[in-house]
């Protein structure tokens, strides 16, 4: 089966003109991570003997989130013309009938590795960056400011435009459809969000899952921002609220890393972001966005369990997802000041 998959990757790369005819796939490895996309690294030998590596992003059957692979591909294409570091996309297969079990696209392999916010080693490495050159911390804040300042009219027109209330409704609908058990805290959380709607809106491109784990870091610098499948045009403070969550700092049950997102001091990050964008941010104003981003996590974790319970996936991580809910409830209770 691996050979068939590699042949398919080569076919897509030859079809897009990325590789000359006659290339040969040599190795394919599925890597850990990726909840609604499965990720593979493919090693290809070109006819001239040179070797290249490529990342294959697959939308598996029964993907966790109903997000469009083609739109994600187009977002990467649009971002390629900006200063936001992203891998160049190299070809896409839109037929769901592929050896990978679903649509996929191929992109260049960039140097660097993602950080695991739950790993003490990675937390230590990022804390050393903060205490030292702050290469990662600076890159993270400058890149986020760049993303939020992008001209949204230059992005694919099909990117959803969502108000704060639209985002609340989106995740509430997922919870309502996919819950196996009614949860009084989640339901009160949605009600709290409606009662605490921000009075203003700061519109821009929202990454939707901006955290250190969705970036690549090499030699103390950010080389890529990945996982754009939740992108939308809306209030950019969503990304900030998400970043200042304790969960983004590696909290599963108890917080372990001192630094926001495991890579920077929170006050420093928000002040720097404010000066880069010209839009100062008060941490208290992020509270609704913190809770909103928790509701996104709740909806995805509830969906994960629902998918396994309904036979749509045999990925055991979807069952494990139930154990992320106690920590999220704990965060919610404190944010709502119960």
């Amino acid at each position, binding site marked *: 089966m691996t050979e068939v998959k590699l042949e398919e990757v080569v076919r897509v790369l030859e079809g897009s003109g990325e590789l000359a005819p006659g290339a040969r796939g040599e190795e394919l490895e599925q890597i850990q991570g990726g909840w609604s996309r499965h990720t593979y690294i493919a090693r290809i030998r070109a006819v001239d003997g040179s070797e290249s590596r490529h990342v294959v992003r697959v939308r598996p059957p029964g993907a966790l989130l109903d997000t469009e692979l083609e739109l994600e591909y187009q977002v990467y294409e649009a971002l390629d013309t900006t200063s936001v570091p992203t891998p160049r996309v190299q070809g896409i297969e839109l037929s769901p009938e592929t050896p990978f079990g679903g649509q996929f696209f191929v992109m260049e392999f960039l140097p660097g590795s993602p950080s695991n916010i739950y790993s003490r080693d990675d937390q230590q490495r990022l804390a050393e960056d903060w205490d030292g050159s702050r290469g990662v911390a600076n890159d993270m804040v400058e890149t986020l400011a760049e993303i939020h300042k992008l001209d949204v009219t230059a992005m694919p027109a099909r990117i959803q435009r969502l108000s704060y209330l639209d985002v609340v409704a989106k995740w509430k609908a997922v919870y309502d459809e996919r819950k196996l058990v009614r949860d009084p805290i989640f339901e009160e959380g949605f009600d709290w969000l409606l009662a605490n709607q921000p009075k203003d809106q700061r519109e821009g491109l929202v990454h939707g899952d901006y955290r250190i784990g969705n970036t690549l870091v090499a030699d103390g610098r950010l080389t890529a921002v990945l996982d754009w499948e939740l992108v939308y045009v809306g209030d950019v403070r969503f990304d900030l609220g998400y970043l200042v969550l304790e969960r983004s700092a590696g909290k599963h049950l108890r917080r372990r890393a001192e630094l926001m997102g495991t890579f920077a001091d929170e006050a420093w990050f928000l002040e720097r972001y404010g000066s880069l964008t010209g839009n100062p941010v008060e941490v208290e104003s992020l509270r609704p966005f913190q809770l909103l981003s928790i509701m996104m996590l709740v909806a995805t974790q509830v969906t994960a369990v629902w998918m396994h319970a309904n036979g749509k996936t045999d990925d*055991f991580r979807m069952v494990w997802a139930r154990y992320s809910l106690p920590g999220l409830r704990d965060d919610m209770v404190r944010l709502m000041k119960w």
Partner: protein
Amino acid sequence: MWNPLSPSEVIAAMGGPVRDAARGEEPLDDWESGQLLSVYSATRHLAAEVGAVEPHIGELTGDLAAALRSSTDETELAARLSQLAELLEGVDDSRQAAEIACQALDLVRVDGSTSAEHVRAEIHVALARAVELEVRLLADAIEGPVEP
């Protein structure tokens, strides 16, 4: 406490990745190792859930029942909340307790009176206590107790 899937459903789901690993003829790849590590992590959580958290379900239902009876008014709302409190006292499954708490919150949200808001706040306190207890018990078992 009131997580989706029962402990027995979680145990049943563990079998798949374990069987696949046992039957596989090739060395495990990164993905397959990840599946087994998730099973391992789930065993630790499950042990704490069954051994440490579930014995406290009676405290949850007791606290919630007291919250539902905290209204001193003689209103239709108070009567309906009292009925739900009686239901709670016969429940030993936290998922059923959560369902009843949701029904109570539906009632007080719609009512919106000062008395209803008082009951709502009391429900919040009971739920927050359960959440903090669950996180502490799971964290003590999995991440180790907080050092003084």
